[in-house]
């Protein structure tokens, strides 16, 4: 049933939000964001199967491209911050506080 796929997508998205708000390791926060993008992808594909149209597949491909761009930029920022501070704690990264 299509509903089961959508319910699984909601559960995975909620787990991603839980990872973002409960962890302080910058890698785990980043991977939780990837998990949320994957949950959105699953919802796109399931709804595309429900309506038997290809638009959801195209949107899922775009989400993958955005995730790849985000991974490249975020990991570059993490390397830079680790070089500067030597830590992986998100509470330490407060350079933009002003």
């Amino acid at each position, binding site marked *: 049933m299509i509903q089961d796929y959508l319910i699984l997508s909601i559960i*995975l998205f909620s787990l991603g*939000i839980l990872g973002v708000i409960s962890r302080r*390791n910058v890698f785990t926060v*980043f991977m939780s964001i990837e998990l949320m993008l994957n949950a959105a992808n699953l919802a796109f594909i399931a709804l595309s199967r429900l309506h038997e149209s*290809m*638009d959801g*597949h195209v949107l899922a*491909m775009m989400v993958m491209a955005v995730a*790849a761009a985000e991974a490249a930029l975020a990991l570059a920022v993490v390397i830079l911050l680790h070089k500067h501070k030597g830590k992986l704690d998100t509470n330490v990264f407060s350079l933009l506080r002003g």
Partner: protein
Amino acid sequence: MFAEWLFTAFALLSILGAIGLILFRHPMHGAMSLVVTMVSLAGLYALLSARLIFVLQLIVYAGAIMSLILFIIMFLNIQTRDLPEEKGRILYLLGGIVLLVPVASFLIKVVKSLPATEATIVGSGFGGVKEVGLVLFQDWLLPFEIVSLLLLVALIGAVVLAGKRRFVK
């Protein structure tokens, strides 16, 4: 019947992988359990007869993005003592569950009101390269070009950020 068993197995594996991601302390273990989630999501895409997205999930997500993340984690050589102390994480986790359970149950109720459709596997004419490509290059041409621009910007940004010799204060 067999497809339902496969769905249950893949769904359980993906949820277990996600739980492992938010509970493991070391990011390497978390990344490994995220790989489990990605691969089982690829299996779910195959069950939804999205052939192209199935292959792309395996190559782009489980292959490229996860190996990039694992490479960076190994490159930074993270020891257990370098990890941040997360004393209040069980508390934050409980608070997040309290916050998210009403939202998620509301969304599940909304989803259950959708018309019930069996997710049988469609044969030809759905989800292949040809069908997706036709839609992509006819209706979605402008968003496709914008995404290519976004990838170019991300490429240049990553080179500029990571290629700096010293951090300028």
